[in-house]
């Protein structure tokens, strides 16, 4: 009897089956995100008509990230100078300006702000759309012939894509200013604030700022499309919303880092 019962029981999937299922799920998410990206780009043609919704999302993105972004950038600028100055004390403190300038404009500003946008505004997008999906609000839009992509995803996509480059400039400015403040106030650092800025301007070129802004555009798209994708595919009540929100943030972070590498690699090809 016992043998029969085991025989009748459905077989547990093996390691390969589980791995295969996971790979298929990842591919499906990437496919859905790509599809949503294309749909958002197409729907962006309606952004001028739907400017109220786009502006509302820009305000939300701004209020979600401005204050904490300032705090983060300031302390990163401060730490960068303190840490580097300690290492460079016996070598050349003159490179502090270029270090802070290049690090902020090309890497830290874009990645920090993108993480912040994905973590704050992106998680809110996933949770909000996830809740709408679970409670049939997105289906209600469909039954009213209202395109959920144009109504919900496109304003978030446009807002994040436009706001992130601006947030990066804001972060660069505060980070660099934070570094200058340490140099001006810390007697252990021998170079002057003027020298800090002079050397920075010598080393940081306009193209470096442009690379940071291009990253901002791409990361803005990722930090909105990924959360919207997870929001739309949410199911399973409040637990499903929590799962989607977490997954949206994790996926956004990973894709931001992957695209960061690709953009850096591409920028060295020119």
């Amino acid at each position, binding site marked *: 009897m016992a043998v029969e019962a085991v025989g009748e029981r459905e077989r547990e999937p093996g390691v390969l089956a589980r791995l295969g299922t996971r790979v298929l799920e990842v591919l499906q998410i990437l496919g859905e995100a790509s599809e949503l990206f294309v749909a958002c780009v197409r729907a962006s043609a309606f952004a001028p008509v739907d400017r109220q919704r786009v502006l509302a999302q820009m305000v939300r993105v701004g209020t979600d990230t401005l204050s904490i972004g300032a705090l983060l950038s300031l302390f990163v600028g401060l730490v960068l100078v303190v840490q580097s100055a300690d290492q460079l004390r016996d070598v050349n403190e003159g490179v502090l300006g270029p270090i802070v300038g290049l690090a902020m404009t090309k890497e830290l500003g874009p990645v920090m702000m993108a993480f912040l946008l994905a973590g704050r505004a992106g998680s809110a997008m996933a949770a909000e759309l996830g809740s709408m999906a679970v409670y049939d609000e997105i289906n209600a839009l469909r039954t009213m012939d*209202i395109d959920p992509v144009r109504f919900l995803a496109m304003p978030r996509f446009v807002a994040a894509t436009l706001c992130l480059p601006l947030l990066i400039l804001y972060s660069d400015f505060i980070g660099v200013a934070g570094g200058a403040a340490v140099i001006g106030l810390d007697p252990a650092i021998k170079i002057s604030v003027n020298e800090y800025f002079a050397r920075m301007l010598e080393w940081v070129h306009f193209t470096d700022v442009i690379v940071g802004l291009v990253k901002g555009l791409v990361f803005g798209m990722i930090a909105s499309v990924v959360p919207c994708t997870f929001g739309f595919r949410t199911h399973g009540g409040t637990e499903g919303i929590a799962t989607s929100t977490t997954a949206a943030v994790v996926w956004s972070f990973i894709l931001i880092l992957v695209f960061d590498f690709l953009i850096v690699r591409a920028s060295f090809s020119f």
Partner: protein
Amino acid sequence: MADTRDSRRQGVAVELTGVRKRYGGQAVLRGVDLRVEPGELLAIVGQSGTGKSVLLRQIIGLETPDAGRIVVGGVELPRYLATSPEEKPFRIAMVFQSAALLASLTVGENVALRLRERRRHDEAQIREIVARVLDQVELAGTEDKYPSQLSGGMRKRVAIARALAVDPELILYDEPTADLDPILTQQIGELIRRIKTEQGDTQVIVTHNLALARAIADRIAVLDAGRIVECKPPAELGKDGHTLTREFIRAAAFGIPGGA
């Protein structure tokens, strides 16, 4: 247009032939054949999990059946869905079980949503339509409230007002009285009946509340194991009927919630 509708106009017919739907390995609809006459109020009853809501989702096009045909108002559903909103010959609205009001919008904005998105009415017309349909569901003056400020019964009525605002020829209701007390259930039932009397729209209600179905419907269809096993006027239901129908009627007589 909602503000110029002909009050004597009838709704549209709905015809389902051999509709099948399967999720993974589980067949939910196993060949549903059903015809709803223009202007008819049809209730679909059945136990929880028998595919009642799934059936509604096929009729409004939220999901596509694996097999079978759905014809609404003489138009094949896929062709209707592919038609642009401006060129659709009639409108279908759905009232969801959760009401599905957008939490970030006020009652007035929810009701006016489709009208504003279509941009075919000016603001004065939209405000007039919103006021009229809210009055129709006895919620006049609630335009500026948010859904979170309303009771469950009020939210359901706002959802019905949102459906009415687009002047539909067919309204589908998914468990419109779920989670409501008997008094609110009666109010919603009377409202749905009044819509039939005053406007002549075709209405399809999915419910497990047999008492409500018997009180308001022209005919009741019983869905069991993915098939319609009986479809009769309320007075004839149960006579030489299907076992499930008899069980439903017995449960209603016994006073079990949902059946009473």
